[in-house]
């Protein structure tokens, strides 16, 4: 025993004991469930019954070729993601740039813009659900007071506006994240570079395109990847506002997966989770590669 203690006490192997708890937790709660999802995805199983039927890749082929509502939900989430990537992040960049340039009240804006992201998605959904109520909601009342009655509508009920309205709520909640990350990126750029560009006679617009944007590419990549991952997994706002309706107009992949679980099709839901994860992984990789190429150019 003494000999073993003598070996381990001074030996580098003892250092590994420090990471064992974290490693154990990672293996148990992250890696094992991750691989177990693959195992479950090839089964037909309700999650309760003792018998599980091996179905091979049948769950996958059904998802890929027979499940129309799954791809509708993907298209819907994709639409919200495109809006978030463009409008949400565009607005976040403009505001971050203004704050970085020392706009009046910058400190206050920094706090205000970061308020929505720290509110629970459920709460955000419930607040907007109330604001957008067609008969007594704040938004339609406001339109009425502005004399814009013809614009009034059941925003979350109308198939023409439901998804875009949902995207607006999501962007309202999400743009603070992009704002904070982009602001941190902008503040990391040396002021000397701007000074040097000005000495060389560059205008503000040129400085933005030739100095700021190239140096911000890694930050843009980070924000874009986080936006794609966060938006494609939208769920809480959907469930508190439209519940995927009307019809399939606001169905999203996360809701489809959870619906399958509650419909006692756990194996199928796991296969959906794998397909969803693969697609997000692929999109993220493509995004990073394109950004790397843009940086080189």
């Amino acid at each position: 025993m003494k000999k073993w203690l003598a070996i381990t006490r001074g030996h580098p192997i003892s250092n590994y004991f420090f990471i064992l708890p974290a490693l154990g937790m990672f293996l148990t709660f992250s890696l094992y469930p991750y691989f177990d999802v693959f195992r479950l995805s090839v089964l037909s199983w309700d999650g309760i019954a003792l018998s599980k039927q091996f179905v091979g890749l049948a769950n996958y082929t059904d998802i890929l070729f027979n499940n129309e509502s799954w791809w509708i939900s993907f298209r819907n989430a994709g639409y919200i993601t495109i809006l978030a990537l463009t409008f949400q992040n565009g607005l976040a960049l403009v505001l971050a740039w203004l704050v970085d340039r020392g706009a009046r009240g910058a400190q206050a804006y920094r706090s205000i813009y970061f308020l929505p992201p720290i509110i629970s998605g459920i709460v955000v959904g419930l607040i907007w659900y109330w604001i957008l109520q067609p008969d007594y909601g704040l938004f339609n009342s406001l339109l009425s007071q502005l004399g814009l009655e013809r614009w009034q509508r059941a925003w979350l009920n109308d198939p023409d506006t439901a998804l875009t309205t949902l995207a607006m709520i999501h962007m309202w909640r999400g743009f603070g994240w992009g704002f904070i990350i982009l602001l941190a990126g902008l503040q990391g750029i040396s002021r000397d570079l701007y000074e040097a560009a000005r000495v060389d006679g560059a205008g503000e617009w040129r400085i933005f395109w030739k100095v700021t944007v190239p140096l911000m590419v890694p930050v843009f990549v980070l924000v874009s990847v986080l936006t794609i991952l966060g938006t494609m997994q939208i769920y809480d706002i959907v469930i508190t506002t439209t519940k995927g309706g009307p019809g399939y107009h606001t169905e999203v992949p996360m809701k489809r997966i959870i619906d399958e679980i509650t419909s006692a099709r756990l194996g199928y839901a796991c296969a959906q989770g794998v397909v969803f994860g693969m697609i997000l992984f692929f999109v993220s990789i493509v995004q990073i590669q394109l950004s790397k190429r843009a940086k080189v150019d």
Partner: protein
Amino acid sequence: MKMWFSHVALFALIALSLGTSCQRSGGKKADSLIVWHWMTDREEALLELAKQYKEQTGMDVQFQLYAPSDTYTQKVRIGAQTESLPDIYGILAEARDLASFIKAGHVANLTASLGEGKDSWKSRFYTEALNTSYFEKGNRYEVSPGYYGIPIDVTTIPMILNRPLFRKAGLNPDKPPKTWDEFIAIGKKLQAAGVTGFVSGWGETWLIFSLATDLAHNLMGAPKVMDTFRGTVPYTDPDWVKLLEAFEKIEKSGIADQSLVTLDNKNSEKKFASERAAMTLNGSWCVNVYAGMNPNLDYAPFPPPALNPKNSRPVWGGAGSVFHVNDKSPHKENAIQFLKWLTDTPQASFLVKKTLNLPSVKNLGKDISPQLNAFSELMENSIHPNRFSFSEDPRVIETLTKGIQSILIGEKTPQQVAKDTAETKEKVLQNKL
């Protein structure tokens, strides 16, 4: 050495925390029971009853509330997968899912405990209430025949009208609509009087399905509905199209609340309780809910209007809150004894008075308010999927109810929805996944 001691302490702490989180949720001590439930409105009454039981028997019963219901459903499923279900719990699911729990050994067969005869435990209950957890011999789920749950209350889901708003529109609240056309005509009169005719939480598609099955039973009778669920009658059958046309009439007449298809039941209840709409579709639990929201609300339930006036007008109901005993619990007998006590007349009476829910136990007539009694009378002609001879597949139900949402927003025709539903049914029949 100190560092080694801290390592050991750290490991011990982790092991302890993991051990604690992974322990079985059932009561550990012989004199304690754990009950999982989702009934936020009944929490206070159940805790009071647990206190009384402790005083009478020394048994500590811990009611653990998990809400909302979908969170609870997931909790129970995870509990089953990890063998950590408590001594007593409820399963919010259809007969097919209950069968899975039973076959996996998570639910005790209570037939022997319920007994037979006029003094038996079984004799206390309304048959419809007890039958929601009953599997007959040769059932399609291959479950051993018997009773697998104890109902503590029941529900009916009828239409409800607001009496003052009816009067305001010059209508007689004692003459609710008997046919679908009358329902639409009355809705139009209400709209003309500046009152929204109808509201319901049809963002929750199960409520749409409850009305659709009521109407289907009225229109074509139970055998044809079951034949459709079995797959021998297609959803494109003229009767089903006629049923879908009933929803189209709601859309075309404009009698419904604008947010009907995304409204959840809680917000629908708020609208009806605040007298923003004159008719609704809601469960008998609403007596308790409306009493909290608007104690002066004057309303009356009525069965869904008929599509076929010659047939009876069934109301979805009979099932309610059911407790199951964990067959793997070391305190199974104690759990059964507690449920016997809970459903004895004094406790059942206390629950009815305190929670304003319809009792599953007979002979509590004097304890039921007249308002609740009106809902109770509809029980006689109730239908419920747990008592159907065949359950429809959730994917088909989804296509049907989402399709009805599409009809209600004027996006699809009844014929299109019937075709979509028939196609989904065909896929489900071919696909064994």
